[in-house]
């Protein structure tokens, strides 16, 4: 590969990493702000603005050595620019798909899944450290929601007991302040943790391409751009996910919201302190569920929680498949053109998903509408128009095609005279 194409490849990787950073902010706004929006502690636009500013600040807050991507999960020797690129594409596609379905899922798991998939395609099963994947990714993903549900339900129960008999005006005012404070802490922690991941990827790409020396610290433009794109994503807000977290799981009041966000902040910070890192998304979702479990008389929609859990289970394999397919396309076509083709596919897929999302838009104006379980479920089938990169949407597509193919058959076999008039209407 010549130096020119090498540079172009590097530019593509950096752009894709920033795009992932954007989807990361976009996808995770709800973790911090969904409850504050649902209880109207903050106006939706104000909430996402606050979260964006804090994410941006968080990215600058600590410049400890940026996290190395997928450390201890894949063989470091198997990592190349192409592998990182394919992994990023896998992460982005899965983030966008789950956003379309309004399902919160861990952005870092999506990235890890994408990278594992592309490493599998590049180096075979020997390139993946399976015990690391199990102990650092899969088991924490199972434990995080359990811990968070426990902590948040105990907190909510105590709060409900202690505020019994206190006038509701006082509690809702007071707890809104508490909510905003705790949600801000979650936003800040997210900015510090997750912007570092993108910085780490870009630094790795720069080092691999020889653009900066191997012992270089993160260049300032990388910090600025990662912070900016994450904040931009946060500000635009994954309203679909905010809606699911704030309205779909539990009907939440400000006491529950405060207990949930405090539990999220505490578990996230403590888990990284004790070296047992848990995904922000899993902890935040578990905390919100827990606030429903702990509140006497509150209703938890376990069906929504189940769908979410299924999405978490699918995150690694689905992002992995996309990552593997992308690497394979790059490899078969070869050179810069292969990478460029995958990039074009990514852009096409993203646009298709965005177009699909416009069929049933969710934004700041309708994010707090009453949750209708039937309507929420129907959002699942609207994934018909994505490109060929994503595997997981095959199910719904087939289902929908079957449905439309079945309809004329059914109407044709329906006995009765005026059956022909029915055909005429179609």
């Amino acid at each position, binding site marked *: 590969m010549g130096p020119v194409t090498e540079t172009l490849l590097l530019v593509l990787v950096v752009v894709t990493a920033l795009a992932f950073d954007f989807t990361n902010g976009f996808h995770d706004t709800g973790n911090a702000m969904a409850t504050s929006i649902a209880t109207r502690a903050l106006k939706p636009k104000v909430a996402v603005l606050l979260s964006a500013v804090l994410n941006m600040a*968080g990215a600058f807050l*600590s*410049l*400890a050595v940026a*996290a190395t991507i997928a450390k201890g999960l894949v063989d470091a020797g198997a990592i190349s620019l192409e592998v990182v690129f394919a992994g990023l594409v896998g992460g982005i596609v899965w983030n966008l798909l789950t956003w379309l379905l309004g399902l919160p899922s861990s952005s870092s798991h999506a990235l890890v899944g994408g990278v594992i998939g592309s490493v599998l395609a590049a180096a075979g099963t020997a390139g993946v450290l399976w015990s690391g994947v*199990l*102990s650092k990714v899969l*088991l924490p993903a199972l*434990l995080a929601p359990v*811990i968070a549900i*426990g*902590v948040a339900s105990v*907190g*909510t129960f*105590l*709060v*409900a007991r*202690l505020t*019994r*008999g*206190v*006038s*509701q*005006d*006082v*509690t*809702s*005012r*007071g*707890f809104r302040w*508490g909510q905003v*404070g*705790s949600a801000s*802490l979650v936003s*800040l*922690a997210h900015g*510090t*943790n997750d912007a570092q991941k993108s910085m780490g990827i870009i630094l790795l790409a720069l080092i691999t391409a020889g653009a900066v020396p191997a012992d270089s610290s993160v260049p300032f433009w990388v910090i600025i751009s990662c912070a900016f794109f994450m904040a931009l994503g946060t500000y635009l807000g994954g309203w679909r996910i905010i809606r699911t977290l704030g309205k779909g799981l539990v*009907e939440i*009041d400000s*006491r529950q919201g*405060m*207990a949930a966000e*405090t*539990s*999220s*902040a*505490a*578990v996230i*910070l*403590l888990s*990284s*302190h*004790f070296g*047992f*890192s*848990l995904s922000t998304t899993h902890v935040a979702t578990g905390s919100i569920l827990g606030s429903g479990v702990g509140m*006497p*008389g*509150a209703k938890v929609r376990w069906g929504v929680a189940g769908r979410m859990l299924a999405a978490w289970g699918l995150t690694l394999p689905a992002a992995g498949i996309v990552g593997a397919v992308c690497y394979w396309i790059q490899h078969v076509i070869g050179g810069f053109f292969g990478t460029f083709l995958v990039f074009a596919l990514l852009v096409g897929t993203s646009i298709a998903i965005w177009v699909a999302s416009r069929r049933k838009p969710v934004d700041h104006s309708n994010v707090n509408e009453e949750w209708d379980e039937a309507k929420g479920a129907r959002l699942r089938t609207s994934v018909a128009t994505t490109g060929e990169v994503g595997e997981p949407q095959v199910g719904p597509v087939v289902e929908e095609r079957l449905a439309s193919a079945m309809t004329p058959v059914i109407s044709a076999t329906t006995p009765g005279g005026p059956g022909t008039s029915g055909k005429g209407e179609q």
Partner: protein
Amino acid sequence: MNGLIEWSALGQVVVAGLLIGAGIPALFALGLRLVAGTSETPEAPERSSGTPRETKGPVVIARPSPARLVGALLCFGTVVGAVGAGLVFLAAGGHS
């Protein structure tokens, strides 16, 4: 590392998480209770779902006794202190 799960780290997270993650909201609630006092109808519905009846303007509460006020300040002070500790922790780069 022995085994797939670092049990000691997990245990620490659970215990400290329960203490802080559940304790802070409880302290906050206790502080509010001390400041605002309980109304005459303690058997008020635990959760009036649907219509959050709210008055506009400042919420008027009776002035709490000095002892209650001190207790409430201690509660809120602890909460603010915990948030401050969280900020220091983040800024110190103690995260992973």
